């Protein structure tokens, strides 16, 4: 297998880059696998990677109806942070953060994880109470965080309007220095390459049209291209389509799939080198390495599988950005797009056993999926390998919506995470 390095680039440049190997194979599926993962997005690929690399389960297939990393992984605004309020969520996201911190080296693929820090602004007294509460919880959970006042905020982001005449003046912020952004496509490709290297079969352009369930236990899947493929365990990681897949398996989930829109400006010279989020003014922005301002806000109110939302959502988002950064008024918006996010009533994911034996779901990440990619894949892989849920995953059982043990992260999720 080929390792990537600057030296490798030089070597290949001498042969006109004609000898680069495939990043992953294009295999025909076997009749049976130990584990089938439905969904080749970031989380599914990470799950496959860790199954093979960390838990020694290499007889694994990832079945993707489109192309790898083509869903929300390709459509999000790439923010990575772990400053969540409740212990359960904080531990899960911090587990992911620690994996992020060595990911490029672990994968030998530069996912461009850039720890430029995240500011969550506070504009009201209640915002500041919530920020204090969350940061104090983070510190006691071993997660870096500080509460900043308006002056400190404007020192970090001088172009932010921290003046008194803002409609909702900035009163302060929470600051997580270790947070940042990553290159979304590279994350999917890096995990895919890593999984493939460890023997995982990545089956693209193949849709799982049904589960094969025998007296309450899943034993495989039906696909449109290759018919039946057997498996001891099946992990379903299909984000926005989780409800649809659950219906095929005969149960419902506490999920609604909503459009989540985002937009980018034209590329401009570096001017914003951290991530700024505001729940109250309702928008967030960062600047990519290409120079685009990457901007987002909340989900559209209605359910939708159209990968597009309504224009007023874009308007409100842009209003918020102009309110926070008045100097961007003359900068121009280049593109907008939408993803399909499966949202839970408590703004926390579902990593869970299901009413069907050996069928596991990892979904409900809402707007917060990207930042959790390695952690989600890692704990889901552990659960699939053992057939029982990983400690960090247990609190995220779908059955918490029956017994009432919800983990309400709306505050920390805020404008969309």
């Amino acid at each position, binding site marked *: 297998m080929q390792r990537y390095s600057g030296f490798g680039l030089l070597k290949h440049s001498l042969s006109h880059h004609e000898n680069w190997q495939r990043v992953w194979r294009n295999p025909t599926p076997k009749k049976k696998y130990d584990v089938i993962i439905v969904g080749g997005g970031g989380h599914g690929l990470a799950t496959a990677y860790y199954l093979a690399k960390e838990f020694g389960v290499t007889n694994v297939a990832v079945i993707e109806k489109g192309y790898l990393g083509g869903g929300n992984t390709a459509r999000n605004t790439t923010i990575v942070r772990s400053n969540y309020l409740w212990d359960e969520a904080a531990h899960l996201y911090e587990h992911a953060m620690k994996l992020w911190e060595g990911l490029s080296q672990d994968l030998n693929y530069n996912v461009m994880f850039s720890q430029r820090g995240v500011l969550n602004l506070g504009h009201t007294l209640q915002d500041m109470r919530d920020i204090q509460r969350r940061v104090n919880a983070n510190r006691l959970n071993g997660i870096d965080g500080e509460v900043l006042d308006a002056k400190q905020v404007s020192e970090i982001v001088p172009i932010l309007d921290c003046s008194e005449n803002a409609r909702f003046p900035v009163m302060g912020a929470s600051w997580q220095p270790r947070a940042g952004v990553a290159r979304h496509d590279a994350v999917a490709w890096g995990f895919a390459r890593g999984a493939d290297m460890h023997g995982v079969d990545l089956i693209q352009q193949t849709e799982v049209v049904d589960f094969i369930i025998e007296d309450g236990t899943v034993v495989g899947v039906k696909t449109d291209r290759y018919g039946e493929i057997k498996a001891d365990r099946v992990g379903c990681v299909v984000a926005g389509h989780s*409800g*649809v897949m659950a219906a095929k398996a005969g149960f419902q989930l506490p999920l609604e799939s909503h459009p989540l829109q985002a937009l980018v400006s034209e590329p401009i010279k570096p001017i914003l080198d951290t991530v700024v989020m505001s729940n109250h003014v309702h928008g967030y922005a960062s600047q990519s390495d290409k120079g685009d301002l990457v901007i987002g806000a909340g989900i559209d109110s209605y359910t939708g599988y159209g990968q597009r939302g*309504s224009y007023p959502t874009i308007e409100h988002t842009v209003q918020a950005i102009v309110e926070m950064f008045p100097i961007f008024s003359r900068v121009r918006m280049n593109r907008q797009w939408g993803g399909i996010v499966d949202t839970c009533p408590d703004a926390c994911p579902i990593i869970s056993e299901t009413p069907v034996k050996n069928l596991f779901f990892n979904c409900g990440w809402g707007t917060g999926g990207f930042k959790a990619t390695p952690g989600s894949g890692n704990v889901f892989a552990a659960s699939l390998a053992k057939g029982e849920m990983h400690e960090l995953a247990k609190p995220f059982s779908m059955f918490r919506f029956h017994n009432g043990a919800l983990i309400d992260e709306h505050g920390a999720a805020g404008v969309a995470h």
Partner: protein
Amino acid sequence: MFHIYCPHCSEYREEEEFHYHGQAHIARPLDPDSCTDEEWGNYMFFRKNPKGIHHELWDHAAGCRKFFNVTRNTVTYEIKEVYKIGEQPKVVADAVPSK
């Protein structure tokens, strides 16, 4: 942005005037106290979330403040019909789940 016909105002209005309230026809159990935790959880949280035909509850928040139902395709976003509370939809999904 949706263009929604309000069955009470009897004309089309912009989405900005309306609020979405999720899946329609979720009746509150008549005897909550006799519900199991599972039944109550299902009532509160578990949803069909279909890809395709969806019956959903909206209210004309900035208009007549009346609630009503909408049958909408969640992929194409076409609104197939609107109907008042207490009425039943005429357009329903075909038995086969959308693939």
